[in-house]
């Protein structure tokens, strides 16, 4: 515990989901000898330097070879180990997609994928290093659980929660930048149960990951204009919280889905798939359009491509007009 009363990992996580994951993984490894981390030359990206020092035998360095890293994880899992394969979101999904599908999902092995630098967090790196299709890739696979923690606190708790998941898990993590806290330090993280971060009766914003905080800002701005916006942190993309979504569809005038991901196949798509069949609802989507992102600082890239608090607010206003 620190002077403020918060657990010591909170300060070390530095408000970054990738570090929340790495710190939780290191703690889990201290309690469970079957835990093994597989790195694709991503020890520092995931904050695993401490893991490496404490458990050098259980940090498998696969090098810059995501396909091999994913296959190794599957093989380890068959022997009763608990592998966490760590990498850059754009590469640990798309590059090793067939290994993820066949060796991990099809063979239904308990492999956790910690995927940092998702979305446009590597803004200046350009389109080769953006991960805007990873949710589509992972959530389309049977057996997968897909989680997008909204902040470092949630990343910590979600990483611990993988203990109870009997199958593969995709944990989408952010980049090397602070992500404002929107959930309590002590959780709780309830897999498959959305956090209602703000009650509201006019419109609902369903957001995940780095779009949760802008959703809260948009809701505050809307309140000033007399509109009551509900904000759901849909941290679990699969399995979706059907009850929360059906309630929102029934109780508010429309739903805005907000995510840092292509419009195709992400959170918004998942919500629309559910509601179109079970409770047709007016929707707006705040997501990456069908284009590759420009190069630039992450916040400016998000703004340029329509993924910001302002865009969420405008979408809500349009639904309530």
């Amino acid at each position, binding site marked *: 515990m620190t002077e403020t009363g918060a657990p010591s990992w909170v300060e070390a996580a530095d408000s970054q989901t990738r570090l929340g994951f790495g710190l939780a993984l290191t703690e889990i490894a201290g309690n469970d000898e079957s835990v*093994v981390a597989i790195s694709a030359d991503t020890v520092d990206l995931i904050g695993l330097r401490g893991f490496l020092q404490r458990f050098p*035998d*259980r940090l*498998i360095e*696969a*090098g810059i*070879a995501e*396909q*091999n890293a*994913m*296959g*190794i*994880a*599957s*093989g*380890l*899992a*068959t*022997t*009763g*180990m608990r*592998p966490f394969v760590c990498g850059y979101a754009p590469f640990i999904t798309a590059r090793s997609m*067939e*290994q993820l*599908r*066949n*060796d991990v999902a*099809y*063979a*239904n092995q308990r492999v956790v994928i910690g995927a940092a630098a998702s979305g446009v967090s590597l803004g200046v790196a350009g389109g080769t290093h953006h991960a805007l299709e990873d949710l589509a890739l992972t959530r389309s696979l049977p057996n997968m659980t897909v989680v997008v923690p909204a902040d470092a606190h949630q990343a910590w708790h979600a990483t611990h929660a993988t203990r109870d998941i009997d199958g593969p898990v995709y944990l989408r993590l952010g980049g090397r930048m602070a992500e404002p806290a929107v959930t309590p330090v002590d959780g709780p993280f309830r897999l498959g149960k959305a956090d209602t971060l703000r009650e509201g009766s006019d419109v609902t914003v369903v957001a995940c990951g780095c779009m949760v905080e802008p959703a809260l800002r948009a809701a505050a701005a809307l309140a000033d204009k007399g509109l009551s916006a509900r904000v759901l942190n849909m941290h679990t993309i699969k399995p979706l919280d059907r009850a929360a979504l059906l309630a929102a569809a029934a109780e508010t005038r429309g739903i805005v889905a907000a995510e840092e991901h292509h419009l195709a196949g992400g959170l918004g798509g998942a919500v629309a798939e559910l509601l179109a069949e079970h409770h047709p609802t007016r929707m707006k989507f705040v997501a990456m359009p069908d284009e590759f992102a420009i190069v630039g600082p992450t916040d400016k890239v998000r703004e340029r491509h329509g993924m910001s608090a302002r865009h969420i607010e405008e979408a809500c206003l349009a639904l309530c007009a």
Partner: protein
Amino acid sequence: MTSNTEAQLQGLRDRALRIRRGVWRALYAAGSGHVGGSCSAADVLAALYFHHLRVRPEQPDWPERDRFVLSKGHANAALAAVLAQAGFIKEDLLDRFYGYDSPLGMHPDIKVAGVEMSTGGLGHGLSVGIGMALGARLQGQDFRTCVMIGDGELQEGSNWEAAMAAAQMGLSNLTAIVDYNKIQQGDRVEKTVDLDPLADKWRAFGWAVREIDGHDMAEVVDALDSLPLVPDKPSMLIAHTIKGKGVSFAEDTYLWHSNAVTVEIYKQALAELGDPE
């Protein structure tokens, strides 16, 4: 090195013949299938399952069992035939090969007793095998992991990621066997994307390598008895084989990589394989 008596070797040759009959039986039931790469692997599979691997068919999930991964998953008819012969699965399951909702499709499924990994997408098995070998090392277990790879499959780059990593990790409890029958789906390997000099490539990647005649049971058994070939390195056995081995019209031709198996063809094949029935 143990000496294997002629009677033991003949017993393994008989096992291999039964695997080949099982392959044809399964693929006749299926109507078609991968005869060539299944029959080329039969002798090595017989030596593995009836001489080398420590497995318990009555307890397929025995934690200390040796692991075998058929990376060239399209040879599933051979794997099914050997698993049936060893007693992991019932022999008459071969007659449901490709059947509706059958556990035996074109490629191995981990849900089948004795199958260690679902394979079929090529270039996957060696990485999975590394994970199994690491699992043994980390848990202080002495089980061994063996991966059979096809030759055409080595054109997949993921194998070479795995080759580098296994050497880096010094996985002496890992063996790869290339079923080098020289033919892939559409042509000879050398006319597609050549692998040679194959042994030199693996040596350069840090493996201990031995080349064997994959149909000479004495050589196959002697090589398996020699594992690991050297301490602290993964072992590679390059088994030179003949595609479709055992049935004259199916041998050494890409036409029998996968082909239809009619009742006439099936009868001819069994006649050549000396079907006791």
